[in-house]
């Protein structure tokens, strides 16, 4: 017995759609929930990131054309187009944006954060500037707590079915006896659990982490401004960070080895890993899937630079 993984379910879904000869699915336009722009809003909120980042995610989406109807809409049986995993795509876009603005090389983002902190001291505009360091601390704490809860839930998972199964009449009494014993033991030790009946969950919601601006402890970053890490150039606000590092210089052949890239935690900066870990927790999938999408997006984004071999910054960490 086991829970199937995301990829298994996804692939079966595609196979089934093709088998059933389903026609093109309804169009996914920019007013649909599954559109990356929309999903980015959701995940930015859940990741406790400033709303202002949404401008940036939209820009990336537009630039690489992943907001196009034909790109997004599922056409079963069409083997030539890469199928879109909507949530993973949105999460990956956010990761790329974070890399664009903060570099995430375990060095620059902290410098930038200190810089923003300085600017915050003299900030008379009323709204706070976003500081990466504070965000990291708040989110990490919550993430660790939730992860721990999740791990415990997994250890407590009950697998048995309501009615016990038995394969022969001879077995029946033995199986039923066992079941009775299990129930007895559960009752006996359940009483000793000292428990706390788990309080009814307030509302079913798809948000696992929630942040409220009403909290006075400053733990919500939605309203924070990115101005602390941006600079004005020719009347436009641009990132102070001039660099970018690619997750991988060459993409693998997905059809051959199943992935676009191979993710190993030790090969990448810890900030990058943290961000992947955050979204991997929210989406309940392995970080490598998000990493694949990030690679895909980066290659689309820097396509010209990559293939024209113009001067670009690639900083690959050991």
């Amino acid at each position, binding site marked *: *017995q*086991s*829970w*199937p*993984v995301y*990829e*298994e379910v996804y692939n079966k879904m595609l196979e089934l759609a093709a088998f059933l000869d389903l026609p093109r699915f309804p169009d996914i336009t920019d007013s649909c929930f599954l559109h990356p722009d929309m999903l980015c809003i959701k995940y930015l909120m859940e990741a406790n990131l400033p709303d202002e980042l949404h401008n940036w995610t939209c820009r990336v989406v537009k630039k690489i054309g992943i907001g196009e109807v034909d790109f997004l809409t599922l056409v079963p049986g069409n083997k030539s187009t890469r199928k879109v995993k909507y949530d993973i795509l949105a999460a990956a876009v956010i990761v790329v944006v974070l890399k664009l603005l903060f570099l995430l090389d375990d060095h620059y983002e902290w410098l930038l954060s200190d810089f923003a902190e300085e600017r915050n001291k003299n900030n008379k505009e009323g709204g706070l500037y976003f500081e990466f360091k504070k965000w990291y601390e708040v989110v990490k704490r919550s993430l660790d707590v939730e992860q721990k809860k999740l*791990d*415990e839930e*997994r*250890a*407590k*998972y*009950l*697998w*048995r079915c309501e009615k*016990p199964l038995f394969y022969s009449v001879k077995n029946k009494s033995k*199986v039923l006896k*066992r*079941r009775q*014993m*299990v129930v*007895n*033991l*559960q009752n*006996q*030790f*359940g*009483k*000793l*659990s*000292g*428990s706390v009946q788990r309080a009814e969950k307030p509302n079913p919601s798809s948000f696992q982490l929630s942040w409220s601006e009403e909290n006075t402890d400053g733990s919500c970053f939605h309203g924070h401004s990115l101005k602390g890490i941006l600079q004005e150039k020719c009347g436009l606000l641009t990132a102070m960070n001039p660099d970018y590092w690619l997750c991988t210089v060459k993409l693998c052949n997905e059809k051959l080895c*199943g*992935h676009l890239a191979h993710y190993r935690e030790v090969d990448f900066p810890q900030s990058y890993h943290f961000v992947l870990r955050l979204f991997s927790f929210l989406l309940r999938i*392995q970080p490598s899937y998000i990493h694949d999408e990030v690679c895909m997006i980066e290659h689309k984004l820097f396509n010209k630079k990559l293939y024209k071999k113009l001067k670009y910054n690639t900083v690959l960490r050991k």
Partner: protein
Amino acid sequence: SSHEHKLNFKKSKEACLNYIQDAMLQKQWKRAAEFLTFYVESLEKDYSREPIGPSEMIWRIGSEILCHHSHSSMKEFNCFMEQMKTLGVKRYLKVCLEHVFHLLCNGQIDEAYQSLSLAESWRFGEQTAVQDKEMKLIQAYRGLLDYYSWSKQKNILLEHGVDGCADLSVEQEMHSCFRKAAVNLKEIIKIPGVWDLFVKCYVDLLEFYGDHNEACQVLNEYAYNSKFPANPNAHVYLYQFLKRQGESKKSLISALKILHDIVPSHELMIDFNTMLQKSKKRKKRRLGLEVIFAALDYAGWKENVKAWSCLARQLKQIVISEKHLDWIKQEWNSRKDWWPAFHFSRYLAKRNWQENQSLSYEKALVAGILLGKDCKYFKYVSHQGCKAQVKRFRMLKKFVNKHNPVYLRISG
């Protein structure tokens, strides 16, 4: 693609077990109980390939939790154990035994006895033969409890015996307990092992009913049969028995000789040395010296006045007779490098003098003989003693001064 992270039954239960283990190690019994409730469903799965299956895990973990949990009662524990007995027939007797131990620890002697009797009558095809060892243990413990009953009744009789209205039924019951106990105790001590308590009880029974031959045989077997693991207590029991029976010094000495070899620091070494010193045979007296020196090699004896007085007495006697000074030389040879710092430092001189005059007296005598009148221990103690005008210290000073040449011969 790697599906190693896939959540499956086996991993989920392994993780659950880890949480239980962590909680138990941190004595968080409620939390351990909570996770155990999620673990128990593994009983419904087949684990025949694993070395330790869930039923054994649950038995062991459950017992621990019920032992320590503040809200658990004996009643709950008993109920749990009864369920565990039905879980694995291969483990039936073991579970019974552990249950009995727990009952005994909680003072529930009668329940323990019932449990043992029930277990004794258990038969299950070839399992009965396979679990033979556990069965013997069960019978042995029942024998022990029979002995305990016998002992209680004996005491009742002894108390009321003077009145003359000795209750006949109590006496009969006592004898019946004796018979039951004797049979089982005799059986278990045949098997090579450490059965100290059982041996003691059995010997007690035999002595009471006057079967000294059997008792002697049992004790000899226990002490000298090479199949049994080396056990200093076996020799102690034999020695004590022989002493009670008023046996000759020769047999007492031979009983203690082996004890000296195994445990030179044993408390009986004082008795041993005392017996050996008085012997007419030179070899025995020589052994006595060896024994007492060996005992004092151990830190636990450092402040034992009796031990020091034994050594002092023997050394004094040798010095006065001027015979066998080479014995002292031989014993001192391997010790002269470390005994001075170990026993005769100036710090110890001060401390011994302050805390225990008799100790310092005996030690000073030994130091004076072995290290001469100029050694710091002797000098300090004798000076203090003379200052305090305690007569024996003046005598001590005279004695050591008189025999100082002997020291020179020893140390040379």
